[in-house]
């Protein structure tokens, strides 16, 4: 029998005891934590109705963070685990060795930090903001247990969808679907006494297809359903309220329509744009979620994902200032169901909802314990890692534009001359997130309040602040969607997050082909 997440029940006391014992014996360490996780998953992929791959497996790993040394510094060690490692005796040996390595790295790092202080006076000891130390077990919540779904059922669901996608229209050149359903369980123990045992289900379906008409470039469609739930996501309990097959066929119809559409042209001037909830999912991700992550705020991501225009220094930043029209509100809430759902973050901080933008005014940033301490903010539990073996980073959670009061139909009806930007495709953002170009799956011309023509290859670009300040209508049609592929960190970590919003109306330049 393969190892499963129940193994944490037998390992929990061993791990907790090791952490408490080592907390007393590592003389130069002020803090350390350990995450041990196991994920059970099943997945299948098919193309054009034929099976390509099926997997029924588990993944286990652990990671250790230590703060130690003269000017206290970080050290980290992470490792994958196999079946033989998940026995208490062997696990204890590996954990002790890992703690020793992380501790050694922290001390070596602290030694050099102390020497460099002469030429780099901003070097400081690591401080963590205080949190409530918790001990809790959170079971996975689902209607249909992913572990009970036969692999063959997952494969057949994938094959049926890709077969019907391919058969929908002669222009469909390629149709592929991938479905994955999983349960992850992660144990967090800290030298402060935290013992948090958290389980989460995750289920996701992906469609990827291309359609070509005549000699024109193929049109490629790519989209997902997904939620922190069980197999019910595939059967229809998702943001589309649609089973996976219907979702896949809807996306195929969209792609076929687009393959025969005219390409949009770039405009020199701003135009009125109405952006739908799916499009605003990526918009809020890129121009609110990422720029409010505190590690970017503190310039820690300068070499990778960039800085943020919201913070120049402690003295000069946008907190408390207007960055959007009074209609703009944004929240980050890991406690609500969505792809960024959890109860505790990867540092054992209780998840909580925070208001990021209130009536157009920037209120706060998403943070972890170290960044909260530097900023003098209260920790808000936004640290996550792709796997226990990787270092936690500040990540957006369910980060969303808040709903308004207007009927979205009326938002379009009021536009005499403009464009309806429907569903996101790909983003490209400036270094400090101050400017964006995000393409859409579809763009419609609006004339006298009606959608009159479909374009392909379009999108919009604008300065982020200008766009937010120009928002003059917010719909009452709030929806949240999954983004499973948010990349950050070195080595790159791919994270699931939830984003969304209502229909918005603003101004931007159109971008085309």
């Amino acid at each position, binding site marked *: 029998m393969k190892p499963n997440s129940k193994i944490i029940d037998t390992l929990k006391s061993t791990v907790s005891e090791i952490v408490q014992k080592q907390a007393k014996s590592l003389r130069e360490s002020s803090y350390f934590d350990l995450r041990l996780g196991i994920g059970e998953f099943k997945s299948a992929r098919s193309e054009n109705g034929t099976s*390509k791959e099926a997997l029924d497996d588990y993944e286990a790993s652990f990671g250790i963070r230590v703060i130690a040394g003269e000017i206290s510094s970080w050290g980290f060690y992470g490792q994958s685990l196999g*079946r033989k490692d998940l026995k208490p005796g062997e696990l204890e040996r590996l954990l002790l060795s890992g703690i020793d390595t992380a501790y050694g790295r922290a001390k070596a790092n602290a030694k050099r930090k102390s020497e460099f202080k002469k030429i780099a006076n901003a070097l400081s000891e690591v401080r963590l903001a205080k949190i409530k130390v918790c001990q809790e077990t959170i079971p996975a919540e689902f209607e249909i247990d992913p572990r009970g779904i036969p692999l063959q059922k997952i494969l057949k669901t994938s094959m049926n969808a890709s077969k019907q996608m391919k058969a929908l229209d002669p222009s469909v050149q390629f149709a592929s679907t991938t479905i994955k359903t999983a349960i992850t369980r992660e144990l967090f123990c800290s030298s402060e006494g935290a013992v948090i045992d958290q389980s989460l289900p995750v289920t996701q379906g992906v469609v990827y297809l291309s359609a070509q008409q005549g000699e024109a*470039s193929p049109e490629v469609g790519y989209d997902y359903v997904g939620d922190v739930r069980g197999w019910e996501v595939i059967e229809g309990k998702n943001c589309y309220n649609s089973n996976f097959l219907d979702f896949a066929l809807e996306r195929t119809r969209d792609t076929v329509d687009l393959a025969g559409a005219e390409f949009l042209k770039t405009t020199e001037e701003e135009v009125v744009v109405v952006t739908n909830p799916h499009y605003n999912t990526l918009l809020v991700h890129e121009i609110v979620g990422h720029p409010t992550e505190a590690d970017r705020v*503190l310039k820690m991501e300068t070499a990778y994902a960039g800085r943020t225009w919201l913070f120049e220094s402690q003295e000069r930043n946008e907190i408390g200032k207007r960055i959007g029209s009074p209609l703009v509100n944004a929240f980050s809430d890991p406690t609500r169901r969505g792809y960024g759902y959890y109860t505790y973050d990867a540092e054992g901080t209780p998840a909580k909802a925070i208001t990021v933008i209130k009536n157009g005014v920037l209120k706060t940033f998403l943070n972890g314990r170290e960044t909260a301490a530097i900023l003098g903010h209260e920790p808000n539990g936004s640290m996550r890692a792709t796997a226990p073996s990787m270092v936690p980073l500040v990540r957006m959670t369910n980060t969303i534009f808040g709903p308004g009061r207007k009927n979205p139909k009326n938002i379009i009806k009021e536009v005499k001359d403009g464009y309806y930007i429907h569903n996101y495709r790909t983003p490209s953002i400036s*270094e400090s997130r101050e400017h964006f170009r995000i393409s859409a799956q579809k763009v419609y011309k609006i004339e006298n309040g009606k959608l009159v023509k479909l374009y392909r290859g379009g999108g919009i670009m604008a300065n982020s602040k200008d766009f937010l300040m120009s928002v003059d209508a917010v719909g009452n049609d709030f929806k949240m969607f999954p983004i499973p592929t948010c990349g950050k960190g070195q*080595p790159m970590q791919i994270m699931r997050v939830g984003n969304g919003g209502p229909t918005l109306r603003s101004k931007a330049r159109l971008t085309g*082909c």
Partner: protein
Amino acid sequence: MITIDELRASVHEALHYLKGRKEVIDAEVFASWNDLITIRINYTSDIPSNGVQEPKSLQSYGLGVLALFKRGGRREVGFGSVTNDLSIGGVSEALTKAKRNMVFDPDFKSLPDTITIPTLQRYHDNRVMEMSDQDTVDLGWKVLKGSLETFNNGGYKKTIIIGGDVTILKERVAIKSTRGVDGFDETTSLSANITAMIEKEKVKGTGWSLSTHLDSFHPEEAGREAAESAIRTIGGRRIKSGKYPVVFGNQPLADLATNVLLPSLSLASVNASNTPFLGKLGQKISSPNLHIYDDGSMKGEIGSTRITCEGLPTGRTDLVANGTLVGFLANSYFGEKLKNSLYHPLPRSGFRYTSMGRDYKVKAGISPTNVMIEGSIETTRDELIKQIKNGLYVGRIWYTYPINGLAIGDVTSTIIADSFLIRDGKIATPLTPNTIRINTNIKEVLQNIIGITQEKRSTSVWGSKVVVIAPEIAVSEVQLESIGL
């Protein structure tokens, strides 16, 4: 640490075991041990910071079995892997998983047969394999030393940011199959990718060093280069939107290649009808001056490996010759599926890359190795700039994506550092970072190449394993949009 001899013994015994299983028609065993060490750097002069933010590592070893089974009247293929176990018990568990996971894939023809003999021998650095934690941490501090001394000597002490990382990857792999594949490999790679800023001057500079050996790895130089480049771009100017001739430096060319061009030249993209070069094999797709090839057997390049993760010797795959599309990157699966009477791709690009490097946990996909971009006629950088006369030199771009999908070929990106206006055939005023967005199409970029330098530099971009041996290229008629606050 697992030795190469242990991995080789494991795959040998595993294959013997698998050959004795009646239900197995063919099988391939791939075993690997990886140690990925990252020393992440973050120094901010005006915010409390750690200098070296965290020294960290990810370690993993195990084996994967890809097997063909008989089921009913057809052949089915399955994959299974085990972690931290190279024993026969582990092989048995992996086989059980492969059997549980088997599917009928009509496009799976066979496991690859061996073709030639690998050319690379003993090209890794044992000193890297055996580096202590203290020594690895020190590499990060050397970067800081290079940058900080440069800034301090220039009198720049406030609003300084130094970020990036030193990454060390140690890999050992062994593979054996019932089709005669029998290979092993050890690689070491070191990279430093550094960004340095003086925020109040709104300038950013980039420096990097890539090497397979410690002796030729220069993290301190990378730190110094980044700081020098930042200082050099003080006093930048903006430019108006319009079409400009542009010289793309090493990093922007590597970025365009990594994120747009090379994915378009993969058979996986052809299979999905998701490339702007669909149906273009044998046709002109660029300036006739351009040649592009992938070669995983170049000694001294960190993209090199002795064998692919399908056990085949690495070597050269021509992609573009004299401006004509002549090939695609292939693994065995797509090579067999998409070959025809006119085109039979050699599967030199089958790799099992994850963030850990070559990883036993996954099957071989398609990945480039070292990609050489060169011209039939090459020139110097000075001549290239003289040729442009009035335009832009772009030294670093960011967030480069095929914005309307790969098949259409539209590309967008922003210029974030290391860039200058070209006036009267000379490098003139620096360009203010973050004020220009490039909106172009990869097909147009290739067609509009008007010059290529002889001097090249091995370059890699964030999140990618590929090394682009990048010249600097001049391209006419590039659409630039003035943006920013």
